[in-house]
């Protein structure tokens, strides 16, 4: 019966090789969680910053969950995509972060990575775009042996999340 509000925004991303970016996002929860209202996935617009490196989306996130347990605390997974001058989109990074578990305002920085691929693929990526993607994007947040992947560090996605928790204390959860 505990409730969790996640209200905030995906502020933007920085540190990517190109700054014409957009972001696909989704919230993944365990089975104990129920979405009462709000959209748990979406996609931001493409931001092409005129100045600076940071792409700003200010994409709102407003979720209301109820839960019967702590397992499967919501995780936010992000995919940052780059739209090039030809309008083609290519993956620039995967990332995930947990929704903060203490109430209040949080500034979350989610670092991202992307699969590296073989050198041929890297070469191809330079010239014709595209790039290796995960077959199963679930791996972003559930991969137990993700360490086997060859990855490359990409930029950071910044989020501002306000957490409101309710009735957690009723079940002995302190924060």
């Amino acid at each position, binding site marked *: 019966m505990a409730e969790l509000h996640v209200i905030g925004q995906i502020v933007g991303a920085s540190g990517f090789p190109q700054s014409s970016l957009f972001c696909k996002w989704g919230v993944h929860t*365990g089975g104990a969680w129920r979405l009462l209202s709000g959209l748990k996935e979406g996609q931001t617009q493409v931001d092409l910053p005129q100045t600076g490196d940071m792409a700003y989306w200010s994409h709102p996130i407003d979720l209301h969950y109820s839960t*019967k347990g702590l397992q499967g605390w919501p995780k936010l997974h992000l995919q940052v995509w780059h739209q090039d001058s030809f309008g083609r989109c290519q993956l620039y990074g995967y990332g995930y972060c947990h929704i903060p578990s203490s109430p209040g305002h949080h500034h979350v920085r989610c670092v991202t990575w992307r699969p590296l691929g073989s050198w041929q693929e890297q070469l191809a990526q330079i010239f014709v775009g595209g790039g290796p993607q995960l077959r199963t994007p679930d791996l972003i947040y559930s991969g137990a042996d993700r360490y086997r992947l060859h990855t490359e560090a990409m930029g950071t996605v910044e989020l501002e999340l306000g957490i409101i928790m309710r009735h957690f204390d009723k079940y002995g959860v302190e924060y």
Partner: protein
Amino acid sequence: MASPGDIREKLRKKRRALQGSLVKNKNESDTQALVPSTKLRKERGQTMMEELTADEEDLGETLKQRFRAQRQRRKKMLLEQSLAQESNESNVDEISTTERHSRRQRSPEKPADPVVLSRPPSGSQRGLSPLLLSPSSSYSERPQLSPSHSLTEGHQHMPSSVRSEHLMRQRMKEKLRAARFKAESLLQQEPSLEPASRLQSLRHRDRDTLTRFDREVDPDRAERDDVPLARVKFQDVAKRVKQDSRMAGKELPTAEEAYNFFTFNFDPEPQDETDKVKKRRQKQTETAREDRDEEGHSDVEEQEDTEVDKDNEDDHEDRSEETPLVRDEEEDLFIIEQSSQDFIDVRRADYIGYQKRIQRDSELLFTPSLRTVPTSCKLPENMQPRYLEEEGLYVGERPPVSATNENILENRILKQEEGKKWFGDDGRIMALPDPIKESSTRPPLFHMEEDLDPALQTVYRKALTSKYASLYIAGGGDPEGDYQLDVDVSGLIFSHHPLFSREHVLGARLAQLYDQYLTRQHNNLTGHLTDKLNGLRNALRNMLEIHGGQALTQVMQQRISEYSLEVRNTRQLRDSEQEKDRTLLKNIIKVWKELKALRDFQRFTNTPYKLYLRREEVERAADEREYESEILAEVVELEAESEENYQKKLSEYKKQLEEWKAGRRKQKAKKKKKKKKKSQSQDETDDDDDQDASEPDVAEEAPKPEPPEKPDFEAIEEQVREKASRIRRKPGESILIPDMSASGSITANELCPRAELARREDVARHSLFIKVLYNDKEVSRTDSRSLNSDFRVHFGQIFNLKIVNCPESIKLQVFEEVGSSCSLLAEVFVPVPEPSVVTGNVPTEEYEFSSNQRVMFDHEGVGSDVPFSFEADGSNKQTLLTSGKLSCCVSWGIGEDEVPLAPPMSQHTGGIHSGLRQLDAVTCIGASGLSDMKKIGEWARESRVDPNDPKNASIMQLLKVASSGEVIAPEYFRLEQLQEEFNFVTDEELDRSKRFRLLRLRNQEVAEFRNYKMVPALEREVTDKVFQEYEKRLKEGEIIDTKEHLDSHRALVAKYLQKVRESVINRFLVAKHHYHLSDMVIEEEVPSIGGAGPGILGLNLFKLAEPKRPLKPQRKERKKVTAQNLSDGDIKLLINIIRAYDIPVRRPHTSKPLATKPARAFVETFGAGQAFQGAIHGTDWLLGQVQVRPFVEVSFQRTVLQTTTADGPNACWNEELQLPFSAPNGDYSTASLQSVKDVVFINIFDEVVYETGVDDKDRGKSIHTRVEKRWLGSVKIPFSTIYSQAKIDGTFMVDTPPVLLGYTKERNFGTECVYDTVRSLNEGAFITLFITVEPQLVPGETIREKIKEVKFDSQEDERLLQVSERFEREAALQYPNRPCLTTVIDISGKTVFITRYIRPLNPPQELLDAFPNSPQETMELVARYVSLIPSLPDSVSFSGVCDLWSTCDQFLTLLAGDEEEHAVLLCNYFLSMGKKAWLIIGTAIPEGPTAYVLTFEQSHYLIWNPTNGQFYGQSDTFCPLQAVGCLVTADNVWFNIQRYSAPMRISFDVTKANFWKPFFSRSFAHPGLSSVQPEELVYRHIDKAAAAELQDRIEKILKEKIMEWRPRHPTRWNRYCTSTLRNFLPKLELSVGRDVADEHRLELQALLGDYRIAGFPLHLPFSEIRPIIEAVYSTGVHNVEASNVEFALAVYVHPYPNNVLSVWVYLASLIRTT
């Protein structure tokens, strides 16, 4: 029972409580005592002593103080005396005393020893600055003077003090006694009472010399003393209390004290000790004094004496230290002279020099150096560091520690005791290698080299996917990998085959044995062992010889015994080997003999085996000698062995015997003792008995051990010889060497008996082949080879397998083919080779196989799994199974450039560190074995991996885990295990939560909860009521509420519509979520400089320069607002009512009947009627101006606004009305706005002023009038139209009732000629309106447009769809304002080509029969029939989802539809009536994009409005159709490509190619689309009874409603009038509302002459009751407030075929005029 701890706790508590009370008491008594004490000190402090000793706990303390006081007093006297003598010294004295005063406060706990004095400065109170040290120390010499001075006088005590001394003694004794009794209550009271009395007297004396101390009296005290002390300082008191408590309650520190204690820098000497010392000192002084006084010693004193004796040593010190004590006394002596200045002491800030501090710190602290400790310091003396790593031992990696830290640690440790034990052999500090846990917390990962989790795979998008995708070899990393596995199947040998003959069996056995023999021979184990044995024996002998006779060392003995043991073992081994050799040889010979016997017996030979036995002669003598010596050696050894054994046993026996004897002796002794006893007490006889009894006792004890037998050497020799003869060649016997060859000839077939022949034939029939299976898939098979008579098959084939998948198993299946049937004989599993195993360097290996198939033959073949015997009698049966050996080899192929085509081991470079190492294990076991823990374990054991090597850590850990069974994979799979345990609540509880449900339903946009604004925060605030409606809907989904619908059929239809709607909504949900840029982003157009259009800078500048023309306002583009950021009150509906034409004018009230006249002669009638004006209107009429005073009332969403009243039938208002708009549920989304069902009612009323009569009081000075409004007509415009059109601008025909009682059409003579022509067809009033929404809403894009992106499934031809799309697109490009429709969506959501809807359909026969002679009227009737079907905009019914076209039968079943359906139906009817008809797709007012019907009559075109049945000529200006987009027939669609789109300006001749663009042309011919319409429409017959029933119900409901709307007035119904009206209504229906008005009016007039009647019939198609009620309400008839008003209401329902109903409601209000 309380535990000791409890008891202790209790005790502690009690003590604490006691202490608490004591402290309180103390404070009390002390504060009380303070004043006296100071005074009494002056008075020799006698009382003070009593008081201060009140506390038993502070006995010592008080004693101390007392003595100090005593001393001080004495001192004072001494000083006084000595002052005179030593005047020079007294100066110093005085200074010091003042100082002492200031220090007095700390004196109690400050023993006088120098240690205390020299201690560092402390707080302000007790601060003793170092500066003070010098005066005090200088002074410290001073007090020594006085004792010495006194001592020089012979005695310590001054004669003058003798008296006081004596007094003192008495007091002391009292005190001691008191202390001993420890009567608390007494002690408390004593001090408070005694001094009080004394004080009284004292104070008198001391009044003038009051010190500050005297003033600081406890308030309580002051009260008791009833001496009001004016200046009592509470703060001081408090301070003093603290001070006192410090002085008195030494043992119980106050908070401040405690704080000071911990914060001040005390010297290390424990407080207790000083106290003790003090006490002791006091006691000593006391005893000393007592001694001198030569008084009797009390017990206590005795004890104290002994103490003194013990502390003799201290005594000396004490003596010397007593001097400072004296000095202390001195300070107190002058306490009385202390002033406030004495307590304040101004000093310099305390500072200790840095160097000094460092110096002091260095004494206390130890700072380990940072320098590296030389290794020699860390190791024991004379030891070289030993590096284990260099010695090859594995040493774990040390955890990283910075060198500085390590150095510091080492330095520190070395200073400690046993510091060196922390250092290892290498001189480094010992450290655990790796603190990481050995067993993982998560299950181990199996790293198959190539088997990467598919989930981990990445895919390169936009690039070619590799040939070898996931789960293949090379882990997806290297798709180029091209691997080849060579499987070489060389051959097959059967060791048994069902077709074996007996001879074959023997032969095979012989061959087997011979093979065995050969291998044994090759290994020559016997020889090896013999050599070893000899070697050992020699060694042993040598050893014994060298040390012969000498005493053997322990080590040697040990070694000898070891050797002999080895010899014994080796001998045994050799013996067994020899025996085996021998038996093998024997067996070979035996089998050969059997074979020979068999051959002889059967007289033919089947096998080519031949055994030769070569005989190797040996030298007999040497051989015999050797044999003998061998036996001898063995015998000797055995003898030695048995001797040794015997000795051992013997010693054992001796020991046992000894024990036994001892036991026996004991027993005997016991017995004797017993005997003695017994002899004393009993007779001899008894004694005997006893002895007898004791006998079994002995027997019960351990039996006497048997001495071991002496070894029988003879027997040993015999045994040896016997064994030798059994297992060894006899001496001199020649060595037999078998030699088998297959050179024998096989008997030819002809010579064999039949059974054998059959077998051989059978053998020849058999053939074999081998299938190669890779990963359980057959990849290839060998050629079939026939079975030879020797049962060997040679294949000699090599298969090159190009593999992509990871090799899991390689399997060879042996198949036997007999004739055409083939059967699987056996399977051979071949391990997957290591990558290093490549073709060319691998020998073929033989893999045994066997089959348990049971085969039986009727010929010579022995079969398989069948018992057979070699004996004639059938005994000694044997059963053999088919078995054999397959020789093959599997290896990795070699490429052209000598590169092995094996998958590389290190496929994954980097990233995998821990897993990689265990690959060697993988290769060793083979990939398939990896999952088998046992195999890994075996491998680990065999290969002896270093368990310490971190490289093997993962394997060791794996093994450990595996062997301990810690990690057992469960056999089930569960998601979110442990969830249950940690659940807060159950699912049911979650489901029960109403609040959550509400939130969820709102989120799901369930109709009832969509835009539900406030969800309560608390569960209990959510009422069940909220869900009632929703649940009802869910529950009663099937049940139809007939009450609401009045008509069961329509209820069903509504139900069906609802269902369709739901399904359609679901279908279109996807489309709904498609957003366009304009939905999300409002982009203001930036005025560009260079751009085209209005943005041109120059033009703009020019505009600026332009003179302002306020009378010619420029139209400005309004800003469009998207719906999302709106809220209630933001949206306003702007309605500009400009003017109206031809509003009916009032008819003078007259009772004069008028003659009936033809319809077209209205003007004349009216003109005639003008003369008969009523009295009331006379003035107006005379003026010729006011025929009617109309005003317009606009009602929308129950908001009603009205214009001012204008005059005349052609009124002009030009007024703007603003109506607020609120969306349902506050949802301003596009979808919601589109589905707003509200309608703007624009009603035209006539304002009628009635005089109610002259007020009697005022006598005609004022006239009372009543204003009434009379409904004249209305225009209804749905909001959805306004919303989708953004603005509505035009002249609309006012929907006037066919009859308006009291009104008539006015013909303006002046304008008649102008309008007459255009009004020929339609009469009625018109109103010009301009309606818009402010701010301008972005018109909701209908889903239809979005659907174009979403593409619905269609049964249309793909080509057709493409063409239609292109057609529409082109049309939209060319003429964006002309609607063009080629495809529509049918009710099931499929795209259908529009022409399919057009098909001639029969109208109801009743209609056709009505006017058999007049096709014109029939057409009108048909149009009317169509218009009577209620219109329900799709956008409303489908909430803006899309525009659905239902077929005519669906339409007629639903009885509700859009304009399109009406138009289609009408068009189809006209077609069936033989008319030329088209469907017009165009735009009209107010519907917007709509469909009309065009018919061609002789020479002119008629445009039919299907929703109201009106028709217009092409040139009719009032035709609502504004633009024609396209025309549709059953064959084609024509798009209007003319310049204009208005119907009166275009040509409808579709044959003209430059006017109309056909869809199907020569380039794309009509494909012959079939119609979606049914062939024929079937109508239900008229149900008059149902209509009558409905009529009654409607009437009843309406009457109720009218009464309801008039809550404050009685509503009377004029029955007579009602019945008249009811009779009149059917006539209206028949004449379709035309031409009956006057007749009817006159009729009414005649009947109700006395009434002023205002009323009208309303005509509606029937759909539901609600619109009827709305319509009645909007007329406002009920608003008549005259007291004498009566109402008349009549309803008539006219049924048409198929349940189409025409509803007439006649409503009239009657006011009696007389």
